[in-house]
């Protein structure tokens, strides 16, 4: 099902931005209200609920012991998956993940993996045989724009919240001590900032309206030291080199701002 954007909406959003304003009164580099709660799902080993404006999602982490991939015998496994639930928007359909959902989970995965949020090497129990496997499931409940930044924030928060039982090896057998739960080997709070290009301007944290009419989109994943760990350009129109550099610059301060919610 396609969503049809009235021409009048497009005109008014573009016009406002040209005037230096946004429909909800925000500055171009301003996030909507962020709320973050962790430990919301007792049955998950780690969880977080994120609200970004009216966008809402829950991230749950489940852990299990599994065999490592043969090319990385000493590394734990991280699997990121997302579901754009049909409850989240009238044009989301039930069924297997569509391309938007796959992009959301892959970009989130990249930001976490390349940002070295969790030290996967410390998740090895028996080399080549037993490692911890972490499933991150991003459950999108309400879609009102900018799922990407909410997903990364939620994923990092859920990982910080995750606890696994201590695993010891005796005679090649893994023994789990559920009395002694320990946090994951956590490294780094890598976070993501997404901008929409509308006309000649870049706006941070695009609302649903802005996403519907944007020309292009750019997401920047950044570690605390300001180094870039992941990027994704989206949207059907091009973006210039200068615009990308400008976005990177703004992202430095803005990921720092988001990071405060993780304290």
């Amino acid at each position: 099902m396609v969503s049809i954007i009235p021409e009048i909406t497009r005109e008014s959003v573009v016009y406002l931005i040209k005037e230096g304003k946004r429909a909800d009164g925000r500055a171009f580099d301003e996030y909507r209200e962020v709320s973050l709660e962790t430990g919301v799902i007792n049955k998950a080993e780690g969880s977080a609920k994120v609200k970004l404006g009216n966008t809402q999602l829950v991230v749950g982490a489940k852990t299990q012991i599994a065999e490592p991939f043969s090319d990385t015998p000493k590394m734990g496994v991280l699997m990121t998956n997302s579901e754009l639930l049909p409850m989240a928007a009238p044009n989301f359909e039930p069924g297997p993940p569509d391309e938007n959902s796959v992009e959301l989970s892959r970009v989130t995965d990249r930001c976490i993996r390349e940002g070295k949020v969790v030290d996967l090497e410390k998740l090895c129990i028996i080399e080549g045989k037993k490692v911890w496997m972490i499933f991150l499931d991003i459950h999108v409940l309400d879609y009102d724009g900018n799922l990407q930044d909410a997903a990364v924030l939620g994923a990092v928060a859920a990982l910080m919240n995750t606890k696994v039982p201590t695993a010891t090896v005796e005679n090649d057998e893994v023994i789990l001590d559920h009395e002694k739960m320990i946090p994951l080997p956590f490294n780094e709070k890598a976070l993501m900032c997404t901008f929409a290009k509308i006309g000649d301007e870049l706006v941070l944290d695009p609302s649903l309206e802005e996403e519907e009419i944007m020309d292009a989109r750019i997401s920047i994943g950044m570690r605390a030291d300001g180094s870039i760990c992941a990027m994704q350009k989206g949207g059907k129109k091009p973006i210039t080199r200068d615009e990308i550099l400008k976005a990177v610059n703004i992202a430095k301060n803005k990921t720092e701002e988001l990071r405060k919610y993780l304290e």
Partner: protein
Amino acid sequence: MIKITVESDLSTGTETSARADGRAFNELRPLKISAGVLERADGSAYLEMGGNKVLVAVYGPRELHIRHMMQPDKAVLRCRYNMAPFSVDDRKRPGPDRRSVEISKITSEALTPAVFLEKFPRSTIDVFIEVLEAEGGTRCAGITAASVALADAGIPMRDIVVACAAGKSNGQVVMDLSEAEDKEGEADLPIAMMPRTGEITLLQMDGHLTGEEFERAIDLAVEGCMKISEEQKKAIKERYGD
């Protein structure tokens, strides 16, 4: 959505209370319902009952795209019951399985009698039930929350359907089985009903009950429904006033 931390670790039975979590035989788990929690959906509700956390969104009445499902004289009410991968102890693979397909079907049938579908020919009303955390009795929790979400969406209804289970655990007929009681127990009897008329719109049972025990169980389930019904009304009133 508001968080309550509910202790779901149940020990298995040497306490003085006959029930593992210390409840009386006719006592519900702590229950909380709120209406209108989502922005995009036409109607929504969030319910917590014991360790269950269930979110429901309603869309419609809206255009139905699948032609062969279309009813010329009334709307169809479609339900999708889905469990989050992290809602259970061992991660559930995303997507529908046989269990969730069955629950979706009976949920739709449980809600249908209460809705004035004839007012919206050729259209659909979609109910999406998401189980964020499961601790026994999620189908009942889903139906109870779905009715509140339908009301929140402004769908005209004859009654607010409510669901509750009773069953037999530790040799005793009890109301609202917890996960541990359901697993260890001898029987489970979930029902849904329209409280105004007392008509039953869903009934399932598995396990063993004598005729006399069944009668007691169904009375207990109805009693549970009546209590939950009050909470449903409270949630709607809280959102819209008296």
